């Protein structure tokens, strides 16, 4: 009997600047599904004064040849200006924002607040029985925080997916 095998893959962070036109997000997301590429996270927002250009950050994974194809396929789209592979380009910053709701009383509530302080999470909403923490940082920092909160009454998590930028004075 035949079995389907998967090639080993690596994680890459791509930033894509695009014309902010109708359907562009569907075009890019659809390209990933149509060609069988993976999207781990995707963020998009317009970044120019006249709302003409958006920046998309996609975290993907795949074998190196597939990552190269993803880039080439993205560059082929007419509204795409530029594609950067931060993972290839070198040292870069990745940041993500999360909102984490924790409900609890007594010792758990105190412990949650203390850990939040260690992680430099901000309390953006509170009731006598709950907090919403706002936490920014690298994705693994948020992962660790969420794991700790599980024991302390985690209710829900919302994450933005990462945005990234190359380190140093020049543009990505």
């Amino acid at each position: 009997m035949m079995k389907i095998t998967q090639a080993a893959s690596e994680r890459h962070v791509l930033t894509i600047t695009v014309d902010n036109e109708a359907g562009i997000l569907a075009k890019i997301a659809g390209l990933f599904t149509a060609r069988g590429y993976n999207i781990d996270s995707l963020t998009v927002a317009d970044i120019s004064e006249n709302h003409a250009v958006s920046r998309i950050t996609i975290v993907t994974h795949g074998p190196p040849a597939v990552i190269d194809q993803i880039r080439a396929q993205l560059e082929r789209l007419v509204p795409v200006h530029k594609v950067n592979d931060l993972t290839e380009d070198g040292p870069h910053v990745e940041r993500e924002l999360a909102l984490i709701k924790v409900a609890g009383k007594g010792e758990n509530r105190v412990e949650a607040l203390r850990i939040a302080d260690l992680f430099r999470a901000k309390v953006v909403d509170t009731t006598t029985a709950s907090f919403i923490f706002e936490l920014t940082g690298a994705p693994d920092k948020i992962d660790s925080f969420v794991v700790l909160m599980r024991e302390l009454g985690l209710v829900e998590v919302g994450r933005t997916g990462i945005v990234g930028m190359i380190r140093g004075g020049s543009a990505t």
Partner: protein
Amino acid sequence: MSEERSGANILVESLVRQGVEFVFGYPGGAVLPIYDALFGEERIRHILVRHEAGAAHAAEGYARSTGKPGVVLVTSGPGATNAVTGIADAFMDSIPLVIITGQVPTAIIGTDGFQEADTIGITRHCCKHNYLVKDPADLAATIDEAFQIATTGRPGPVLIDIPKDVQIASALWHDTLPQRRNRYSPQTEGASEDVARAVELLANAKAPVFYTGGGVINSGPRASALLRELQALTGAPVTSTLMGLGAFPADHADWLGMLGMHGTYEANWAMNQADVMVCIGARFDDRVTGRLDAFSPHSTKIHIDIDRSSINKTVTVDLPIIGDCARVLEQMIAVWGKRPAQDLSAWKARIDGWRAKKSLSYPRLAREIAPQYAIERLYALTQAHRPIVSTEVGQHQMWAAQYFPINQPNEWLTSGGLGTMGYGLPAAIGAQLGNPGRLVIDIAGEASIQMNIQELGTATQYRLPVKVFILNNEWMGMVRQWQELTYESRYSNSYSDSLPDFVVLAEAYGWKGIRINSEAELDAGIQAMIDHDGPVIVDCRVAKEANCFPMIPSGAAHTDMILFGDNVAGTMDDEAKALV
């Protein structure tokens, strides 16, 4: 000068400005304003097809045979969805099309209106680019950009979806070209250091091969001339994909024939044994490469392509050169300069050894017409006319590629990438319109031809003398062949049952019908087809169970070809079956 005009009128004026001669279309509710603007319009000829798929394929045939973009006009909903197959076909084969689709009025979009379909969503991944125009003021610039995108870089279909209210509303029309930002500028010139390295590799090769594809045709006739020039300088043998046939003359001593699944023994062995491969405007399609890990294992691979995403997609190459085929060939010729050609006699002697296999030989049959023989006779009797040949998809298509030599670019129209049955008849119609006075032949199978048989009426209406030459074996021949070779002859649903009488059908549409039952009738039938001043269907009854060889079975290497007379096992393992 500028004045207020309706969106429909701006569209028509913009098409005229682009030099559009023909629009292939079919009217419907959501394009009525455009059809009204076309009424009495003498600068553009509208060709009324019988089905929107026919419109798209006819536009492809026109584009492929003339080098100019084909224009399609269809209504919303079913008009657009019917055209999708042709759009996807053009996308795979890089054919420049501009498709105008009507859409329900902007206020109705998204409400499941009558004849509403998400045309932009549906065509997103089978178009090079697409637009929904919501303001008639954007139309002129959009159309201008659409033609630029369709025809430059790697060509392809571009779709413009225009809601009905946008066709009726007015905007300022300017006589001058619309002001727009140029956001599409493909790289045409190869990097000079890469070109120099490529020439160096080629000059030092002991066993070089040119592997050329549809990109050479797309680049324009000059690319074919330059290919011949570079080949003459280097002496390297040439093979081509299905899409690239005609770029290099088939009667040339260094022509190896087509490569790939149904390519010649010498082409596939030359690819396998080459030390330097120059791939020009081809994309290492699975039908060409066979088993990837055994594909041309010893060669240094140079890949010239205008589309960066074609590089390293399936086969990793050593030297990619991104640029237009014609421009890069010109650069290579300049760098080659006055170098003498290498002595390739040892390599050519090996190739002659493979040629001696005579992989295209086939047995003549006592009682039936061998389909290969029918194609050979068709070629022999028509070659003086230098016909333009289109095909449908299947065995007859491969036989045409093998036995009907094409010596010039733009004279071979076939659906390569998508493999669309029903392509050939409408493509022949488009080609005939673009090439009045030429002999245009659709080499067809009895199954494929029925996929767009309704277009017989289009040819009748416009008095187009296209010839349809059907190799009628009463089977979906290629399906039957695969079932024979890989599914132990379990012929599941591949018999062409309840066939029409093609001669009577031809006559019903005002065509001439000719039936050929035996070899004795073959030449006279073909001659009668050529001599008839009007459209003709030839129903050529050929051997029913002939197989198309040579063949590289799915999942096999170039060196594992099946030739005529080989014993073929009736089964295949699951891994091989799973390959396309």
